[in-house]
Every structure is written in structure tokens, then in C-alpha cells.
């Protein structure tokens, strides 16, 4: 317990470093592009339009307000995907720095996941635009949206620090993860309704893929304007904390050996 306190105090001491790293990532992302931060809004909007055109003409699913259904799912999944992909390279990519100065190593991973969060918050503007255009009924439940974002943030962070530590020893993970994320995306109800999954597999579909729960909760809040399933929210937080514990433990156990492999 005392140890945990020391670690948290360490994080507090390096909070300015965390801030500087996040600011760097966000600043550099669109530096020297003409539209700049506007891309954070334009990108999800345009991707959504392409998918709406493809899926409302080629493959038809009977989903009311398909644009909002799509953009809520893809934004949330995109956040997890970006955060974990960036986190994987956070230790190996900062090798030069880690070899020359002493800095708590997890700060880099935390910074990457946090900058993905900031990017996603920019992209929220795109969701708001689509919600307003399609005249979705907004209810007070929208105030619960940060809860879902916190769940996904903690889950991505746990997954991210696990992957960052593992990829120091197995670099192949960086490439394998790209494939895995694509597979995961198709296993998550982003552009199809959950109802196309046969009833008998649905239990596993929910339990083996935490993203299904997160995406459904987010849609309940934004699209259907209703209270998300409390049971699902509790399970979501549990999974997020388990991911965080496993990730932190793996990272903590292996971090002293990083320097020998980077």
C-alpha cells in the first residue's frame, strides 16, 4: 500500500512531463497541415459518410438513424484502437531518451493513451454535428457519456501498458496488433446490428469482447437517450480495472529489464 502511495506521488511529481508529452503529441499531429485541428472533426465525418453510402446501398441493415449508430461505434472503437496502437511503440520509440535519463517509464505510455483521449474528445464534435443534423432526441442521460469514456480509457490504458511492455521483448507484436485490431473491429457491432449474431453465440459475443458492451452503453446514452444497463456498466468497469491491474503488474515486473532490450 505504501508502495502504491510512493508510485502515485511519483506520478504527481511528473505530471508536468505528462502534460508536456500530451501537448507535444496533440500539437505535432496536425502541424503544417492547412486545416489543422479541423481534421479531427472532418476525418470521422468523412469516414462516416463513406460507410453510410456503402452500407445503405450495398449491404442494407435495418438500423434506425444509421449515421449516428455508425459514428458512435466507430469513434469509440477508433479511440481504443489508436490508443493501443500508439501505446505499443511508446517504450521502444522513446529508447533514446530512456537510455539517457531517468524518467518513470510508464509516463510515456500514459501520455500516448491520454493524447488519444484528447484526439477523441475533438472528434466528439463530429458526433454532436451528426446528432444535431439527424435530430436525435437528447435526454439528460447524455451526461453519463463521460462514464463510458472513462471505462474505455482505463481499459485501453491497461491493454496499452501490457502491450508496451510485451513489445519490448517481442517486436513482432507491433505488426500482429494491426491485424488483431482489424479482426476485433469486425467482431464489434460497429456497422452491423447485434441482432445478426445468432442467439446462441450472443453470450460469448458479449463476454469475450468488452468493446461490445462499451459501444452498446454509449449508443444507449447518445442515440437512444436512455439509461444504459447498470449491470453492463459495472461489468465494464470491472473489466477495465482487471485490464489495468494485469497491465500494470506486467509492466512493473519487467520494466527493469527494458533497458537491456531497447
Amino acid at each position, binding site marked *: 500500500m505504501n508502495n502504491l502511495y510512493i508510485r502515485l506521488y511519483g506520478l504527481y511529481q511528473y505530471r508536468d512531463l505528462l502534460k508536456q508529452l500530451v501537448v507535444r503529441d496533440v500539437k505535432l499531429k496536425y502541424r503544417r497541415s492547412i486545416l489543422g485541428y479541423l481534421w479531427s472533426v472532418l476525418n470521422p465525418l468523412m469516414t462516416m459518410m463513406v460507410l453510410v453510402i456503402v452500407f445503405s446501398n450495398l449491404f442494407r441493415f435495418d438500423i434506425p438513424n444509421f449515421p449516428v449508430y455508425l459514428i458512435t461505434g466507430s469513434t469509440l472503437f477508433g479511440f481504443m484502437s489508436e490508443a493501443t496502437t500508439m501505446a505499443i511503440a511508446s517504450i521502444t520509440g522513446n529508447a533514446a531518451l530512456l537510455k539517457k535519463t*531517468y524518467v518513470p517509464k510508464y509516463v510515456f505510455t500514459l501520455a500516448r493513451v491520454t493524447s488519444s483521449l484528447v484526439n477523441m474528445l475533438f472528434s466528439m464534435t463530429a458526433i454532436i454535428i451528426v446528432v444535431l443534423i439527424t435530430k436525435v432526441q437528447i435526454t439528460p442521460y447524455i451526461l453519463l457519456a463521460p462514464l463510458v469514456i472513462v471505462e474505455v480509457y482505463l481499459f485501453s490504458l491497461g491493454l496499452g501498458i501490457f502491450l508496451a511492455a510485451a513489445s519490448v521483448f517481442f517486436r513482432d507484436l507491433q505488426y500482429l496488433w494491426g491485424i488483431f485490431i482489424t479482426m476485433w473491429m469486425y467482431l464489434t457491432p460497429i456497422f452491423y446490428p447485434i441482432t445478426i449474431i445468432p442467439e446462441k453465440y450472443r453470450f460469448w459475443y458479449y463476454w469475450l469482447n468488452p468493446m461490445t458492451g462499451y459501444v452498446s452503453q454509449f449508443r444507449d446514452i447518445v442515440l437512444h437517450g436512455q439509461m444504459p444497463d447498470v449491470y453492463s456498466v459495472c461489468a465494464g468497469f470491472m473489466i477495465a480495472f482487471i485490464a489495468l491491474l494485469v497491465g500494470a503488474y506486467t509492466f512493473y515486473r519487467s520494466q527493469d529489464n527494458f533497458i*537491456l532490450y531497447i
Partner: protein
Amino acid sequence: MDNSKVVIEVQNATVRFNMACERICNLKEYFIKVLRRDLLFQEFLALKNIDLTIREGESWGFVGVNGSGKSTLLKLICGILKPYKGTVKTYGQIAPLIELGAGFDGELTARENIFLNGAVLGHSEKFMREHFDEIVDFAELHSFLDMPIKNYSSGMAARLGFSVATMVRPEILIVDEILAVGDYAFQQKCQKRMQEMLADGTTLLFVSHSIEEVKKLCNNAMWLSHGESLMTGTSNEVCDAYMNSQTK
């Protein structure tokens, strides 16, 4: 004897590396090696049973040929490396100058990098804002502040790195052969600043191949060879012994 506070205590420290040639970086290689049963790591001891006690205000020089473990010892003291055996204890704030500007991001401007590098060294943003002018004055880079660091020459980047790192008066200053870049005037300026710090009671750990500099800045010295400590003593004695062995 000397009663001043011990600031660095290295006891029986050994650092082990796995040889780079046996480093496994990908799965394919790993499985092949497992199947062929030659997953034997060749051990390499970069430091062997080093004992070192440094008291407050002392200045130590480390000499030895390339690959003798000087930088490894400094990294061990900074906390970048952990000892495989033995213990390392340090008391006080350390400013490591292992490589100048290690925390610089080439895409960011000098102004942004000063804040980033300061944060890497553990300073708060407020503190950096207060000392910003001081840093820029020392580095003499006023007209290049809003230029990305990637366009800087190595000497210019080193100037900036040195200014950021030595802006505070750290209790322990660790300097690893960094002053080779930078023009003569700047080198003199850096030396002057280090001497000022020493006069103020900072403990200095210094690695250089310039024996003259070691003699000038340090009172004590350690001679390392193949990861072992061959000799410790006053810098004049150790440097002379080292030079004699080299010129034979």
C-alpha cells in the same frame, strides 16, 4: 576522517548485459532458437563488484579506455540501469548530462523543447517559465527560438541542452563527455559554470578522455578497466598511472 554527508554509495555493484548478438527481437527468431535449443544467453558483465563512496562536495573523474564501463557506472548511479547484484544508494537531486538534449523532439521548436526537456528533468512548468530567460541567455540562441530543433546544428542543440540541465543547482551533477561539441568559447563557459557549481558545494561526477580537464575539475578519480576498478585515489595519481599505462 571526513565527516561530511555521503551522497552516493555503491556497494559491490555488478551490471550484467545479455550480449547483443544473442538478443531475440522477434517471435520467429525466438521459436527457431527454442527449437534448436540454443537459447543460451551469453553473459557480459559490464561492471564487476564496484565499491564507491562519494561524499558531499567531492568531485570525481572517471578514466579508462572505451568500453571499460565508465558510462555504465554513471547510468547506474542515475538510476537508468539497475544493478544485477549489489546496491546503489543516492541522496539528493541528480542532474544527469549523459547526452545533451536527449529529450529533444526534432519537430518541436526550441521554445517548446525547453519546456519538454525541463519536464523530463523533473521541473515544473512554472519553474521553467521563471527560468526561461536565464536558459536562453546562457545558450545565446535568442534569434533561433522558434525554429524546429531538427534544423539546429549539433553544437547549437548541445548548448541548449547544457543550459537547461545546469540551470538548477543540482546536488549531484553527472557529466559524460558531452563538451566535445560546442565551440571553444562555449566549452570555456561550461567549464566555468561547472567550477561555480563545485564552489557552491555540488558533487560532480565527470567522464572525459581529456586528462587535463579531469585533473583541472576533479580532486578524486577512479580508473576503470574491463568493468573493474583498477585504482582509486586523488586525480593526479590516478591520471598519471592511467597515462603511463596508455603510453607504454
